């Protein structure tokens, strides 16, 4: 009796992330939708994608995205829609634009600079 009471109090409103009922019938579309939800940040959580999150808002977004996928919108359009509606903050993979330019370019600049440094050492060694 005590047990049942404890359980009914604590476990009533538990919800864990993506639900099988949300899945789309078409497995190809489902795969696409799932992939998108993994790249979308749960706005009310700390650092999770909506696929992992148990928040109600995340569930709404999952359903919304699946709806969009089923309606035949391409991925890029869905990302754009979400970005316009909720802001850049929602994208876990920042889009490539003016302010994020450095974020995407710098690692490769580092790489080229590194290669340059190695070649510098190597060239000198031949003259030496």
């Amino acid at each position, binding site marked *: 009796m005590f*047990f049942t009471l404890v359980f009914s109090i604590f476990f009533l409103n538990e919800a864990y992330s993506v639900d099988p009922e949300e899945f789309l019938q078409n497995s190809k579309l489902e795969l696409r939708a799932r992939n998108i939800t993994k790249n979308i*940040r749960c706005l009310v959580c700390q650092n999770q994608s909506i696929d992992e999150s148990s928040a109600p808002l995340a569930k709404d977004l999952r359903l919304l995205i699946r709806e969009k996928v089923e309606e035949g919108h391409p991925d890029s359009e869905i990302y754009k829609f979400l970005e316009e509606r909720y802001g850049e903050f929602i994208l876990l993979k920042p889009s490539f634009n003016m302010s994020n330019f450095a974020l995407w370019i710098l690692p490769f600049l*580092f790489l080229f600079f590194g290669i340059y440094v190695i070649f510098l050492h190597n060239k000198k060694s031949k003259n030496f």
Partner: protein
Amino acid sequence: MIATLGNFSIWLSLLFAFTQFVSSLQKNNKKIIKFNTIAAIGLLLFSMLSFLCLIYSYIVSDFSVSNVFQNSHTTKPLIYKISAVWGNHEGSMLLWILVLAIFNFFIFKLYNKINFSFVTNSLKIQAFVTLGFLFFTLLTSNPFEKIFPVPENGLGFNPILQDPALAIHPPLLYIGYVGFSAAFSFSVAILLGKDKKLENNILLFDCMRPFVLAAWTFLTIGIAFGSIWAYYELGWGGWWFWDPVENASFMPWLLGTALVHSLIAVKKKKILQKWVLLLAILSFLLSVIGTFLVRSGILTSVHAFALDPSRGIYILAFIAIIGTYSLTLFFLNSKKFSDKKYVTFLSREGSILINNIIMIIVCASVFLGTVYPLIIESFTGNKISVGEPYYNSIVVPIMIPALIVMGVGPLLSWNDINFTKLLKNSFPNFIFVFINTTFFVWIFGSFNIFGLIGIILFSWILSNIIFTLISNYSLIKSLKALNKNKIPKITNSMLIAHVGVALLILGVTASSVWQKEKIIRMKTGESIKINNYQVVFKELNEIKGENYFALQGKFLVYDKKKLLITELNPENRIYPITNNSTTEAAIHTNLKRDLYIVLGDGNSDKGRVIRIYYNPLVIWIWIGALLIFMGGLISMKNNYNPSKNSI
């Protein structure tokens, strides 16, 4: 009473650290040594005493201490009462100080007789760093703060942290972070040194080695324990999430990796000294910056500590002081450490240089990703997110060349080698790689470009080690090797650590590329098939644990021949004291795969949501990390005392 003693001990530690800091003001060298002896031992004893006092307060649940009240509870098992000491901000600072004091003591003990002015300078810097953290603890986060009236019981403690892996994770990690402080002190002391003779300086660089090895080795295993915990506790079948907290430990690790390897090049070829100085400074700065990021509440993270801006300001001021001082010193004094020697690609030192540069690039990219949202926010006010997909698409491609080079490294000798000869030597490797890769892709039965690359890298590193071993053995045996320098020397530590990396790559690749997932709603009695296994949901029970209640599922797993493999019992727990709930995944591990079950929500009419993962080769990630750790330990043992090695 005990808490007062603990508090008093911190003040005494402060006194000793201060003594050590000013000891060089003494005119007489003998007196300086005497002062340092007293200071190093006193600091060690009293920081240990204060730490033990805090442990004692936790064990007896002395709730008059605010820190104990906040983080402990009488119903907690003893082991987690103890681990709660470092599971919170204030207590972990005390541990941090203890580790600093231990390293400080070893600097004194190991090198006091080698080079007087160098060791005195190192101890001075180390004392300054220790003073910084002591003041920080005393002024902003004193763990012995009293509370009145004394509460009847504690506020409990996050149940997600009540876990064996997480209990030992912080101490291991702190040995790593704090170990770099020794490298930092040495680096600054070398820069301060007046001796221009290269030979003498090389010996000083060698002093750094056991400390850097200790830091890097323990950081490796510390990160591994954190990942293991994330793997089974967070219930996502994953083990690395690119969370800022993880990045904070990964960045010093990357620089530490570069540092460990550069130090070998310094010793063998007397090159890269300037690199080492900078790397040593940066790896400690990054360790402290990581601490700052996590504890100042400046960014959001799953595991962020409590927010308190005054702490943030303090640590940042401290970072600014030591960073400005050391980097200015580097800017002014590092020129004399330039070497006139150059490096060719096809040599051991060439491969070390290339790997170094890539490690630094990866570290810079991770740093960029971590702080970029902060930079954007302070300039434009916009908030952006940089998450897992960014890191995966940037870090993975940059890492690949490093791993290719790492494979070929052991094959190379310290001087340059003919390219055609190298190609000829690696011919059996190519065959091995081809066969091995075909085998694994065939096993998994599906083609995937990342999987393919990962398996090739794994085979490449492994085959190079195997064939180097074979050829070394036959060379020595045939006695043809009159010139021993021609044989690329490989040490046991390197061998073990590199095999560890190969296995790590295998595990990482297989578990991320060939993972299988089933999310379904199941009623008791129903069953589902996942990759040749039949999983039957037998029953659901309500159980009572030591300080929690749980719903426990009973799942039976059968193989193709209908033989029972195992019973898995995932749980949903509720801790009534703190009103926290956790999901406990149930995992069955063998050398080939993990079966991973998580119990979700639902009820008896509709059934429950069950998530089942088939994760191939996960155990090899942990075995790999363990081998890297062992390699590090062996290397530590071999490089324990550089003065003996060099003379």
